[in-house]
């Protein structure tokens, strides 16, 4: 996110969860169905206070599980409502079956997800294993670096999901505890501005339109199912355009510029890391430090993981000699994390492409320190100078 500086006096101090709950208050969804889970609990806890105090018009459905919460959200959305929920980790895993129903039925549900490790062993701290496990569920996935981005992304997500050419559900991520519970100064928009920006939902086939009855979820066998999946493929291509279209409009009301990804000191970089979410902030600091020592280091921070901006990412990375892709989850393929696999595949078409290594990092909330990121750049520098790659997949800050 590139920021047009506003006066700090206009900023407010909020945690990530508070910022997301405030965005939800401004979105004022018709229905919110949810079930609590650490570290996302606060989002709906704060929001339910808004509902109880009459500050939103939302119908709250307190479900008995996340599977039910997502089911109720889908039902409400099919009825024509603007419906939301929020979750994390095991909760997202319990929703897994219904995630496919939401996307397959083309319901533009928007859901903040606070990234957290998954059991076993039990861990409540940040990594991206939960949402990376949902990457093939047909949802748009947007990752936020900080509370400001989480707030901005959530408001944009409504427009992206409900875009007439898209009509897909969208999850908006932030890092558990690091961002969800970290206090930060951020700029919110006036309620009226948000209301005008998101407008009213225009559902395609609302179930509550009793004069035009429709069937949702019919049996769809060999004769039609494949055509409906082909439509979802197309919708994801359209989502990429819609994300940029909505970002351009959002910049006009906020002064915050968003794209499919963000780069930092990448143009002349000889070594780069690709890293999502909160660790990008640490990386920016390390880059400034290493640049002062004469090392040409840079960063690319993906914002949108689904749809995957393959061509755009490849164009941005193809001329950099050495690249480390940082994955805050492992797909246990033995070939590295999901971000690494997809970025490498995106570069397959290019004759000239970087030497690439993968760092699995920060699992279960393992702290990502300045020294951690610096050690990655030092490793890349050795690879660049010697041409010796060594292990393709590495584990950052794991004790031997």
């Amino acid at each position, binding site marked *: 996110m590139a920021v047009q500086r506003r006066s700090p006096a206009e900023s407010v101090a909020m945690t990530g969860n508070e910022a997301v709950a405030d965005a939800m208050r401004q979105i004022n969804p018709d229905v919110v169905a949810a079930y609590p889970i650490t570290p996302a609990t606060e989002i709906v806890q704060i929001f339910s206070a808004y509902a109880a105090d009459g500050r939103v018009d939302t119908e709250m459905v307190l479900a008995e599980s996340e599977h039910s919460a997502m089911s109720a959200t889908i039902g409400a959305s099919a009825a024509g409502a603007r419906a939301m929920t929020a979750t994390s980790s095991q909760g997202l895993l319990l929703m897994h079956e219904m995630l496919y129903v939401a996307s397959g*039925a083309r319901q533009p549900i928007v859901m903040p997800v606070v990234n957290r490790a998954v059991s076993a062993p039990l861990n409540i701290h940040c990594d991206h294993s939960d949402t990376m496990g949902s990457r093939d569920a047909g949802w748009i996935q947007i990752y936020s670096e900080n509370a400001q981005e989480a707030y901005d992304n959530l408001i944009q997500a409504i427009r992206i999901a409900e875009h007439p050419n898209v009509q897909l559900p969208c999850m908006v991520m932030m890092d558990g505890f690091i961002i969800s519970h970290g206090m930060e100064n951020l700029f919110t928009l006036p309620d009226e501005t948000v209301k005008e920006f998101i407008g009213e939902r225009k559902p*395609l086939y609302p179930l509550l339109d009793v004069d035009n009855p429709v*069937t949702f979820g019919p049996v769809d066998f060999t004769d039609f199912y494949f055509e409906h999946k082909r439509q979802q493929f197309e919708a994801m291509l359209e989502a990429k355009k819609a994300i940029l279209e909505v970002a351009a409009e959002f910049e006009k009301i906020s002064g915050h510029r968003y794209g499919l990804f963000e780069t930092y000191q990448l143009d002349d970089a000889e070594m780069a890391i690709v890293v999502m979410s909160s660790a990008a902030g640490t990386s920016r600091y390390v880059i400034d430090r290493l640049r002062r020592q004469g090392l040409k280091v840079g960063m690319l921070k993906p914002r949108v993981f689904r749809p995957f901006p393959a061509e755009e990412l490849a164009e941005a990375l193809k001329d950099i000699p050495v690249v480390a892709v940082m994955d805050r989850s492992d797909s246990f393929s033995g070939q590295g994390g999901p971000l690494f696999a997809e970025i490498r595949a995106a570069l397959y078409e290019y004759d000239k492409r970087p030497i690439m290594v993968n760092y699995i990092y920060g699992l279960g909330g393992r702290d990502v320190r300045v020294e951690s990121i610096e050690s990655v750049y030092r490793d890349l520098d050795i690879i660049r100078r010697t041409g010796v790659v060594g292990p393709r997949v590495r584990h950052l800050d794991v004790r031997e």
Partner: protein
Amino acid sequence: MSEVTQQKANPIRPDAGWKELPWGGIIPVGGTARAFKTGGWRSNRPIWDSEKCISCMTCWIYCPDMSILVEDGKMIGIDYDHCKGCGICAEVCPPRVKAITMKPEGV
């Protein structure tokens, strides 16, 4: 079979391509179950005797597939396009009437 033909035509043609089909497998008209002929699933066929029938409508209430055809308050026959042959109608027809008997298909 006036009820059946009155239905709005289903706009989903069997050869429709992905660009023209409604998104999400949604069927944008009601009453489409009528277009799906389930009669072929039947292994026992209810045979109705119009001479015996007193049009009490018990079978019409119980039939799970809405296959008892009625006109002007009188039973007029069975919709074999949708009747799945469960035999409930024969079972519930009053014992002193017994206007419906089940016969194996194809015998």
